[in-house]
């Protein structure tokens, strides 16, 4: 059943949650979103109650092709609430709809934050002036706030016990995914074998966003406005988020701006160090940049498999299957720079 047919039930849910007699959904449109989640913008008029008036909300729910690795909507809602309480710039989380009778699937509502998320626009021209030094610093500061959340957190019990060695866990996980796909990728295998031999011990375990990159935050005229897409957050090595953010594959063509294609690496790291009080070891970030390329390559292969297997024919997914060679090559270059071998012949 489409969302349009569910609007009356959704309006009743919102009215009850907002303690209003009537919630009128004035307008509803899909928001261009990821392959995993479906996002809708709702304009809602509350007749009365503590929040009477017009509100712009975002509804987030599972898309059809639900990838098993991502968290449930209830868990993502708890993560955003925790981040919100910790002062991280996130859209204000409002209500969780766990009752399947409303939409037929779980969803939550948050307040809409105006801004641009699209990576190619932020890397080139978002359509308004952008202070790139300040933006890169702010992105570092905001990430430091996330990493200030350490286990245990009562509302995040679903994250389980933190692993003492997140890098080795990741490597094992990517190998499992490769095996499940039945693919022989020597480039990836080598990257993973190298990473296994060079994985640094984590200096600490914190909450990590795990998809902290350009495309997953909103920027507007006032600067960084909100960190989005918490569906992969987990306990982990905070340096993993720094590497993912700086990885060349997430610079949207602006490869010289090493901080996500939007700013300078030094500005981003300065903001992070100032916010966290922690010294960042460049070699550790480089290690996680290698891991970033391996991770994105594995995800791209999984996405392509949805097309190749015939489950979900799509040109976009099909083309994604031709991205991994580039990522494997970049991982190899990074490894060569980090770990030059003496005997090259």
């Amino acid at each position: 059943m489409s969302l349009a047919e569910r609007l009356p039930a959704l309006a009743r849910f919102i009215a009850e949650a907002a303690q209003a007699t009537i919630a009128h959904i004035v307008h509803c449109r899909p928001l261009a979103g990821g392959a995993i989640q479906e996002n809708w913008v709702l304009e809602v008029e509350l007749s009365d109650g503590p929040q009477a008036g017009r509100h712009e909300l975002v509804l987030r729910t599972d898309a059809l092709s639900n990838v098993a690795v991502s968290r449930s909507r209830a868990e993502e809602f708890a993560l955003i609430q925790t981040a919100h309480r910790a002062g991280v710039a996130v859209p204000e989380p409002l209500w969780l709809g766990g009752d399947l009778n409303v939409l037929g699937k779980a969803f939550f509502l948050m307040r809409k934050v105006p801004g641009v998320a699209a990576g190619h626009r932020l890397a080139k021209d978002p359509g308004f002036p952008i202070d790139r030094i300040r933006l890169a610093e702010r992105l570092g500061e905001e990430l430091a706030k996330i990493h200030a959340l350490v286990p245990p957190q009562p509302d995040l019990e679903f994250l389980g016990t933190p692993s003492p060695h997140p890098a080795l866990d990741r490597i094992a996980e990517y190998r499992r995914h490769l095996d499940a796909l039945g693919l022989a990728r020597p480039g990836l295998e080598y990257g993973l074998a190298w990473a296994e031999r060079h994985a640094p011990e984590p200096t600490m375990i914190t909450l990590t966003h795990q998809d902290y990159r350009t495309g997953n935050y909103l920027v507007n005229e006032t600067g960084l406005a909100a960190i989005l897409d918490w569906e992969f957050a987990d306990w982990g090595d905070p340096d993993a988020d720094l590497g993912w953010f700086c990885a060349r594959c997430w610079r949207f063509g602006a490869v010289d701006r090493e901080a996500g294609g939007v700013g300078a690496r030094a500005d981003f790291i300065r903001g992070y160090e100032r916010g966290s009080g922690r010294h960042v070891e460049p070699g550790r970030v480089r290690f996680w940049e290698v891991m970033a390329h391996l991770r994105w390559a594995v995800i791209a292969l999984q996405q392509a498999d949805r097309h190749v297997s015939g489950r979900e024919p799509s040109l976009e997914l099909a083309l994604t299957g031709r991205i991994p060679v580039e990522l494997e090559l970049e991982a190899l270059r990074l490894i060569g720079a980090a770990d030059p071998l003496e005997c090259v012949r």
Partner: protein
Amino acid sequence: MNDRPNGAELLAAARVALLEELLTDLPEQRRYLARMVANAMAIAARELELGDGIDRAELTSLRRLFQDPEPDASEEMAARLEALNRRLCVEIRDGRFAGGAEEARLRDHLRRSLEARVAVSNPKALGR
């Protein structure tokens, strides 16, 4: 068979028609899809032109890596390539090629075969 235009040439002509004649008639929100179609055609055309040579070079390089002398003529190239790449994956995971000259040889093989494949999928990524 050497019908002209060949497959790669047909794809190239179709791509020009799509980008230079059709694209401007499409509404803005359909152009992204059209560009993806053009990209898929460009990759397919490059693969038709370069694919066999790339596979042959990769096979030669794999044989050298394994010091595998018998060129098995009875076996299809694609099957042999697949078998050697699977063997390579298993050996890498088992810790062979870790350190020194072995690892350098492996890196060299991987760099060359990946560069050849990126030349098909996205040659722009090589010019850096």
